[in-house]
């Protein structure tokens, strides 16, 4: 299934481009993601936690930046991971394209996502992947903005108390009043994701 998302980085393209390629720096901005190992020049291992409704998943896997086109400011990432409890896997090829957008930088993301195993095999919950992806990207962008703004490393995973977002983008889950939001059990309900590729819970068309 193909997903299309975009977000804006409050930095000029040259700066944003370097930040985006600095995986150890940006990984913590991804909700639920944890970078555990740098295994090569542009290859990484990590975990991504995701909760969709009652289902809590931890994908463990690897990602590699396979292509970088400096001139076009385009990068391609391949990522794959498996749920640690055997409930399936996710595999993605993600293309990031950075362009100038009124002084800031716009990042367009095209993801070819394949989910497999039992996480992929629940028809009633299909159609939510897009919404979840949108939510995670939006949280990632927010965290990234804070990261760039503060020019300091934010707390791991940001503190975005993001719950498995399935709201439409115009009505984010995070809109739930903060004081009513429950204490988050970081191991489970805090939704952090590694790469877009790994959000993978629910099913697409």
């Amino acid at each position, binding site marked *: 299934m193909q997903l299309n998302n975009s977000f804006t980085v409050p930095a000029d393209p040259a700066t944003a481009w370097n930040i985006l390629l600095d995986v150890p720096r940006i990984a913590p901005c991804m909700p639920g993601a944890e970078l555990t190992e740098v295994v090569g020049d542009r290859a990484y291992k990590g975990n991504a936690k995701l*909760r*969709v*409704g*009652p*289902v*809590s998943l931890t994908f463990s896997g690897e990602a590699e930046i396979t292509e970088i086109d400096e001139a076009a400011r385009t990068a391609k990432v391949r990522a794959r991971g498996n749920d640690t*409890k*055997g*409930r399936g896997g996710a595999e993605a090829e993600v293309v990031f394209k950075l362009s100038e957008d009124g002084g800031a930088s716009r990042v367009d993301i095209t993801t070819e996502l394949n989910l497999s195993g*039992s996480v992929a095999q*629940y*028809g*009633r*919950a*299909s*159609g*939510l992947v897009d*919404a979840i992806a949108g939510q995670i990207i939006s949280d990632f962008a927010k965290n990234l903005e804070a990261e760039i703004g503060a020019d300091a490393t934010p707390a791991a995973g940001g503190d975005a108390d993001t*719950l*498995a*977002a*399935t*709201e*439409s983008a115009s009505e984010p*889950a995070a809109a*739930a*009043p903060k004081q*009513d*939001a*429950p*204490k*988050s*059990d970081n*191991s*489970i*309900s805090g939704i952090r994701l590694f790469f877009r590729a790994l959000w993978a819970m629910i*099913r697409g*068309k």
Partner: protein
Amino acid sequence: MKSAPFTYHDPGTVDEAIALLGQHEDAKLLAGGQSLMPMLNMRFVVPDHVVDLNGVAGLAGITDTGDALEIGAMTRQRDLMRDAAVGAKAPIIPEALEFVGHFQTRNRGTIGGSLCHLDPAAEQPCLMAVYDAVLTVQGPDGTREVPFAEWPLAYMIPSIGPDELLTKVRVPNWAAGHGYGFAEFARRHGDFAIVSAAALLEVSGGTISRAAIAIGGADVRPIRLEEAEAALVGQAANAESFKAAGEMARKIDAISDAYVSSAYRQRLAATMVERALAKAGSRAGGSA
């Protein structure tokens, strides 16, 4: 299809249950089990701990406080359907519960379990939405009340912390003789609704004085049709106004999945809202 291993706990009190939740990471509460057990068997849910609420004292039961029904979270659907006070004060509840699974599952299934599972197509959350029910949640620091509108945070995620427990819901009473109607479309008897609608009406002299409409199954959580509710007040309780309300339901946001498109859900919402209102109108004795 056997559950993965877990450690089982069967507390006898709410405090013990909350303490257990605090002690153990990755604990799941087991209420009636009619949603959790399938997910355990299929290993969609693989918790380290299961805390069984079936032996916890004081979580089940129905109290009529005069202005509301207080329903314990572990009250089984069967008991709600058989309860005289519920039948008299909130007759839409037994009407809607007929659509919940099958009598064998209603013998175990609890209202609290369903509200915490929060399947968007489930009937009980839809009922709580139409009533603006208030949920009581207890945790290590005491209790807090959550209006139903703030209960769903996201798809199947309620506003409840990992060491909290839903203890009861308060369903405010409507005026005696109010009209009520529950309509649902599912492919087969007992299936999750594709779309359901719950409607409550107070009608005097043929004119609607109060209206509440909730729709289940269409979006990621039950939704209220506030615009239509407002429009209905002051209108005659007749087919025309109900049809107009149905048309408003056609504009709601709706999800699509492998089986059903959002457009079809919107179409069904219109039909179900109109049908639920028609039932409610006829029961309110509103002059047509």
